[in-house]
């Protein structure tokens, strides 16, 4: 009995456990103190450095006016060139300044949004998810940005730019080379030829007085460094390298001017250079590429917000992601003190949290949108927006024209047109999407200048479809309600779509019904994502597939519809080829001038509409709720105006620290 675990032992064990837990809790608390101390220490060092800089400047007697607060220094030199001039009003903060005149405008409060998961890392270039790029969008800035109303490029870090378009000289040279190359042996690598004209170069003049969030000024060296860093093969950014490979080099002209030299004329050249986020050289050059690849949170830039600790962010489950206002921002400060992203993965939990008023934004599905609109409590506390975004993608059905080397029934354009006319797309929009979508006529977003407004989507017209199909030879010969070819083969096919998506499920079942009414049998076949991709992209072993493409303001149809992309795993998985379209796409991609390029895209749009390689279904509307205390959220052509222009009046402030 002496070694029995008795009451005293129990008490002793419990006491020991309590003691250990208290020690652990105390250590935890010390850690919290440590964090606070560290951040205070950081702030002090920053301030000391700022003071030293100020004193230096005062001693030199040259305290430059910060461009954000002073008069407008842009619009200095304007070069020649086709579309080379930057817009006349070069003040990127005019809109914010206008809002600041509102009587109830106030700085302060937090903006609380939601991510579904904690991003793995915030380090630019090596991060891969959309959440990280959202955060980076508030911290990093690029040379220029699109004006939310006009969609024109507007200077940001750059004050103006000049474009040298030498396309004609370059083309002449290339043709000469080709002619010579045919004569002499395999054309020597022409890139080294000093006589080769530069096809395209863009010179950006940088705005003086732009500083990073640690107070260091942004110069041409930082721009050059950013490009070289991306192109460094040891940096794990193959995607970005592929994206920027059209740029030959970036040169420093002087302290405040850089020149982007391109390898060939390319229509998106300006966009490429303009949206490159500029990284501070003095910060990032402290790490080797390997350390950079491994890092989770090296994020610093010149933007309106910054990470509290630009070096030490780590993903931590259950913890929010926070950005604080960059108090050294060179432009107009945004209103919110902090941007906070809470992590809520479950959709029901997110909806409940929004209803409780704990988050400020809720992008809704059509059903949720209607339900929330009927709720008087939500109505009184929130504002909602319903709009078509020019960057929204579209859903489609792709008709495979070539299967195991043999043309399918869809190789005939009339069949594709007829099937499109048999599918009542407007009813899908009305009944499945509850009206929150728009039928599209081609791959370009209807709001993009790329889209030809004169092209109307094919109508829902079963009679015309039947006539077209009859022309091809499809007729209901045995009176069973299904169309057949003369040899008795019925018009029957399998439609693949991603499994597990409720929207696709409902759309596909709807299409099955409308097609059946026209005498066409469609067998819906959902497939798991990777199996589906393998079938469609690699094996090309399918009849038809329903998928979606994401969109940009000016998208590139080359990837999807050019015949060079037919061999697997190219994205032209329907094996659609039209030489006329190929030539048009190539020409448009080489045309740097926008006024000359858009008519070419319009022609592309018309051909695609006529050929119907896809049945283009619809593009969704954005449905979003915001907390009512946030003011000045406005619709723009780009969607909504940027968050930097929103604010919360003083008396409605909710959060502060």
């Amino acid at each position, binding site marked *: 009995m002496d070694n029995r675990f008795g009451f005293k032992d129990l008490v002793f064990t419990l006491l020991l456990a309590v003691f250990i837990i208290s020690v652990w809790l105390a250590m935890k608390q010390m850690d*919290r103190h440590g964090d606070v101390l560290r951040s205070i220490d950081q702030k002090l060092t920053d301030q000391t450095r700022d003071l030293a800089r100020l004193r230096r400047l005062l001693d030199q007697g040259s305290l430059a006016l910060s461009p954000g607060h002073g008069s407008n220094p842009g619009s200095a030199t304007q070069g020649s060139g086709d579309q080379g001039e930057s817009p006349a009003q070069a003040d990127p903060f005019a809109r914010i300044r206008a809002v600041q005149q509102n009587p109830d405008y106030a700085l302060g409060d937090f903006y*609380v949004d939601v991510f579904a998961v904690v991003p793995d890392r915030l380090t630019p270039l090596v991060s891969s998810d959309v959440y990280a790029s959202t955060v980076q969008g508030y911290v990093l800035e690029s040379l220029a940005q699109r004006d939310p109303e006009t969609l024109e490029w507007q200077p940001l870090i750059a004050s103006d730019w000049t474009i040298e378009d030498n396309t004609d000289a370059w083309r002449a040279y290339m043709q000469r080379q080709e002619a010579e190359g045919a004569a002499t042996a395999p054309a020597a690598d022409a890139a080294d030829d000093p006589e080769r004209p530069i096809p395209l170069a863009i010179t950006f003049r940088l705005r003086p007085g732009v500083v990073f969030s640690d107070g260091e000024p942004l110069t041409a060296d930082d721009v050059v460094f950013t490009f070289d860093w991306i192109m460094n093969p040891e940096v*794990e950014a193959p995607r970005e390298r592929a994206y920027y490979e059209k740029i030959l080099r970036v040169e420093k002209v002087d302290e405040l001017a850089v020149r982007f030299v391109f390898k060939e004329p390319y229509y998106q050249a300006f966009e490429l250079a303009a949206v490159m986020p500029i990284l501070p050289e003095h910060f990032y050059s402290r790490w080797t590429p390997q350390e950079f690849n491994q890092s989770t949170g090296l994020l610093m830039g010149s933007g309106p917000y910054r990470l509290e600790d630009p070096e030490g962010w780590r993903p931590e489950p259950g913890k929010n992601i926070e950005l604080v206002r960059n108090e050294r921002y060179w432009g107009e400060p945004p209103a919110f003190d902090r941007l906070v992203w809470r992590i809520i993965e479950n959709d029901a*939990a997110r909806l409940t949290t929004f209803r409780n008023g704990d988050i400020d934004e809720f992008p809704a599905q059509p059903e949720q949108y209607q339900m929330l609109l009927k709720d008087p409590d939500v109505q009184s506390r929130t504002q909602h927006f319903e709009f078509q975004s020019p960057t929204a993608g579209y859903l489609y059905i792709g008709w495979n024209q070539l299967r195991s080397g043999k043309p399918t029934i869809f190789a005939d354009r009339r069949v594709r047109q007829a099937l499109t006319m048999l599918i009542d797309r407007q009813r899908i929009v009305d009944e499945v999407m509850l009206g929150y979508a728009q039928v599209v006529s081609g791959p370009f977003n209807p709001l993009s200048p790329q889209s030809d407004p004169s092209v109307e989507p094919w109508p829902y017209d079963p009679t015309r479809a039947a006539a077209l199909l009859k022309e091809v030879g499809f007729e209901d010969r045995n009176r069973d309600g299904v169309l057949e070819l003369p040899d008795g083969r019925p018009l029957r096919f399998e439609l693949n779509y991603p499994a597990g998506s409720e929207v696709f499920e409902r759309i596909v079942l709807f299409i099955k019904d409308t097609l059946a009414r026209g005498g066409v049998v469609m067998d819906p076949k959902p497939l798991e994502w990777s199996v589906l991709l393998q079938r469609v992209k690699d094996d090309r072993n399918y009849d038809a597939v329903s998928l979606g493409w994401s969109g940009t303001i000016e998208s590139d149809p080359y*990837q999807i519809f050019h015949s060079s992309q037919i061999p697997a795993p190219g994205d032209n998985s329907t094996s659609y080829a039209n030489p006329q379209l190929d030539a048009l796409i190539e020409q448009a991609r080489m045309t740097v001038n926008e006024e000359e390029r858009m008519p070419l895209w319009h022609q592309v749009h018309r051909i695609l509409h006529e050929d119907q390689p896809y049945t283009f279904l619809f593009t969704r509307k954005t449905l979003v709720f915001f907390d009512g205390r946030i003011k000045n959220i406005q619709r723009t052509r780009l969607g909504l105006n940027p968050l930097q222009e929103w604010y919360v009046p003083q008396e409605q402030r909710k959060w502060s620290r």
Partner: protein
Amino acid sequence: MLTYIIRRLLLLIPTLLGITLLVFLVMAMAPGGIGGPMLDELGGQLQTAQMQRVRAYYEQRYGLDKPALVQYARWINQISPVGFEVMPDGSLGEWGFKRPDLGMSLTRHRPVIDLIAEALPITLLLNLISVPIVYSVGILSGMLAARYRGQWFDVSSGVAFLALWSVPTIWAGVMLIGLLANKQYIQLFPTAGLHSMLADSMPFLPRWTESGFEPGWLLDALWHLVLPVTCLSYAGFAFLSKLTRSSILENLSADYVRTARAKGVGERDVLLRHVFRNSLLALITVAAGILPSLLAGSVIVETIFSIPGMGRLGVQAVQYRDRELVLAVTLIAGFIGLVSELLRDVCYAIADPRVSYE
């Protein structure tokens, strides 16, 4: 006993190799193959040629272009403390002792060990709170139910626990949030996460100030854990309670109990000193399952309450066929599972003198 334990520990190695090889082969043969879903997502707005280059880069970087068995052999070499040194360019260096390494996750481009170090504390925290609750409630109610067999406590606890056991966690979780964390009904608890928005600037312990009660950091954190822990625990009561009840009942009708009662031992002592100790064997068998489940985590609870622990990490790894992550999670889970089996066998010998491994 010691030789037995050593023998069992040595047997662990081939068993683990078998487990990981099997998991690896299933992953390699699944559609898309190893890392397939990750490589598929690289496409985006890139053209085919560019995409091919990006793909080739990743295939080379993570050795995905090698045959499956070579990849497995490389992984074995990587995790073993004895083997070839791996050079930064992927070639093999000298044979000898080296640092075992779980490798880099293909899809998240971060060391696997870091990912596990982030997810594990969450899972441990949740389980270290919920497992003691499940066990104490389950065992106590089982004992009481056996003691008052057929009376109201036995019947009502049985019915209640079975009812709880039949409620699916995914539904319960959503209902708990919808009812107990919703302004429209009762807003008692938070909907997601582990801390409030302003937790960083809270005092540590709760206190009363002029403006009222301030919960403080500690209480705030515990408050956030109430719903997830409830979800993790409620279904476990029925099983343990029924198990304890039946094994105690079995022992209560044994001869030695009659003897004890006959010689005048009090009913309390009969139950706690004689019967309970003899009923432990069945409980030990079940308890061996705790250790692995402490680390495994629950995908459903973690997803509903947005606290990503080991469960989600594992499921995500499988979805993306992330070679290093799947194998590491398998290795750890397998190791813990096998070790707890061994512990169970040792515990048998301690609890029951009749069991011996000599």
